[in-house]
């Protein structure tokens, strides 16, 4: 087992960090204090047995003290230095490593392994955020909310980069300055974490904050519907009758807030309201609630559609927009463009750009009239399980010689403990490639800007 020339230094650093006396550690490890002293000053090669005893006393894996154990860390530090050099160009007399003393990298990693890991982690984070900034640069000119968010992230990245570069130069910084820069790094890393989370939440539209940056009539309409709890009781004939309103009259009334929408969003709302009123008459709430009552899984939309004489996609809409429904719903047209988005908790739907190509929605789009049923789990942290039920309707509004239109829908039904599992493995899906953490995805279109993508 190879043992580094700096093993003693690392042992000493660790002991001092723990506030232990040399004599106490030596006694606990079964060696003399003078022998430990020689080891700590790298004047004696430590045997494997003694190393294991010392690492046990110091609560440190023996592997962490050996040559090669920090190989990956050293490589990462060298890469960070090279990257800093590449960013720094040839100016200022900087070397290829941006001024970092590459010949002392092992000493740095050996004496300060924790700080070295911090430098590498921050460098990686900065690199990831730089990629994000590059990818999103175009949008800055169109979206002032995003511009402000990115400015905040860029400022933190700038601070991290400059500070990390300073810290990556071992032996030249006074302890007070080093402490100060480490505090700055810590503060900026927290700021970056918060900033990047806010940015991702904004991009995937999962949070209410996203509403501040509404940029399209579709978003405006969806925000209005979300504000109504995704349900419009005035369109329900059975509710109207119960409240003493003749069937049909309720549907004619314009729901609150529609007039406040932009003209384009009002057009979308009007079309939606007309269609939703017809679907409510065909498939009354009472029937839906009976079908869905007490079951952990979604009721069969094909059977409900046959019963009500409406399309399967219309049933998916009714199921997702029942009062209090936790189910999500996405609709798309024949091009795959999302035309309606109701996210389910734990299943984010992209606000901009294309969705995850693995969604069963798109499989259904290619097979009109055939149900596509999958259990899906969301990629990344806090993975949740859903039953995804997708269907595609075909329409020929101009008759036989006219265009063929497709509308596909996917119901996203949160699965509780009582739900049975479908056969086979659940399909791991994301939101959209740019913010998806799924590793090794065969359908990936572009690199992710978040997390490890494997």
């Amino acid at each position, binding site marked *: 087992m190879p043992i580094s020339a700096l093993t003693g230094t690392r042992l000493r650093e660790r002991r001092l960090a723990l506030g232990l006396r040399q004599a106490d550690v030596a006694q606990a490890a079964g060696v003399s204090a003078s022998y430990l002293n020689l080891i700590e000053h790298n004047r004696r090669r430590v045997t494997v047995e003694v190393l294991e005893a010392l690492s046990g006393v110091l609560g440190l894996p023996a592997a962490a003290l050996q040559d090669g154990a920090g190989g990956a860390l050293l490589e990462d530090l060298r890469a960070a230095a090279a990257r800093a050099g590449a960013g720094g160009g040839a100016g200022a007399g900087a070397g290829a490593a941006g001024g970092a003393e590459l010949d002392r990298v092992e000493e740095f990693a050996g004496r300060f392994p924790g700080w070295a890991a911090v430098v590498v982690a921050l460098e990686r984070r900065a690199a990831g955020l730089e990629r994000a900034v590059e990818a999103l640069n175009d949008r800055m000119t169109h979206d002032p909310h995003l511009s402000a968010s990115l*400015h905040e992230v860029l400022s933190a990245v700038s601070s991290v980069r*400059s500070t990390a570069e*300073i810290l990556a130069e071992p032996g030249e910084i006074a302890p007070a300055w080093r402490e*100060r820069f480490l505090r700055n790094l810590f503060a900026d890393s927290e700021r970056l974490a918060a900033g990047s989370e806010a940015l991702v939440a904004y991009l995937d539209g999962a949070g209410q904050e996203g509403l501040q940056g509404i940029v399209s009539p579709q978003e405006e309409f969806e925000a209005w519907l979300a504000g109504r709890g995704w349900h419009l009781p005035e369109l329900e004939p059975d509710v109207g009758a119960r409240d003493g309103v003749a069937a049909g009259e309720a549907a004619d009334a314009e729901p609150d807030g529609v007039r406040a929408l932009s003209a384009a969003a009002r057009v979308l709302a009007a079309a939606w309201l007309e269609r939703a009123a017809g679907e409510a008459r065909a498939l009354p709430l009472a029937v839906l609630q009976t079908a869905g009552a007490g079951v952990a899984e979604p009721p069969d939309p094909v059977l409900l559609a046959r019963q009500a004489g409406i399309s399967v996609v219309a049933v998916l809409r009714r199921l997702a927009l029942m009062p209090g429904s936790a189910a999500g719903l996405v609709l798309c047209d024949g091009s795959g463009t999302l035309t309606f988005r109701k996210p389910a908790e734990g299943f984010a739907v992209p606000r901009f750009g294309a969705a995850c190509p693995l969604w069963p929605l798109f499989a259904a789009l290619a097979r009109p009239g055939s149900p596509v049923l999958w259990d899906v789990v969301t990629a990344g942290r806090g993975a949740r399980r859903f039953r995804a039920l997708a269907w595609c309707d075909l329409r020929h509004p101009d008759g036989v010689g006219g265009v063929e239109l497709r509308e596909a829908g996917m119901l996203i039904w949160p699965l509780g403990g009582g739900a049975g599992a479908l056969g086979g493995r659940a399909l791991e899906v994301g939101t959209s490639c740019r913010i998806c953490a799924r590793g090794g995805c065969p359908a990936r279109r572009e690199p992710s800007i978040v997390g490890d993508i494997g």
Partner: protein
Amino acid sequence: MARRVLLIEDEPNIAEAIWFILNRDGCQVATLADGLGAAEAVRADRPDLVIVDLMLPGCSGLDVVKAIRADPATEAVPVLMLTAKGQGRDREAAEQAGVDRFMTKPFSNADMLASVRALLAR
């Protein structure tokens, strides 16, 4: 004799890092956290170089540069502008205002030093 640099940057951690690397390079660095009164400080202290962030509270970096260039006593002071916005139109506006050099955040310390040295050598 140490070259004097006035750094106008509202992000304290960035200002601290820049202060450190320039100070270590032999510069005497004074800092301001906003653009208000920056032009007056330049007139009073006559630094050898001004480093100014584009987006500042109170008064934008562009306004600071315009004020420096409008004053015969300070019009020749070289100015390096920092910005988190790298679009062409920002660069163009900076050049029109009289900025000598433009750096986009995040920048490397080596780039920063190279730019400062080049501007001080003029």
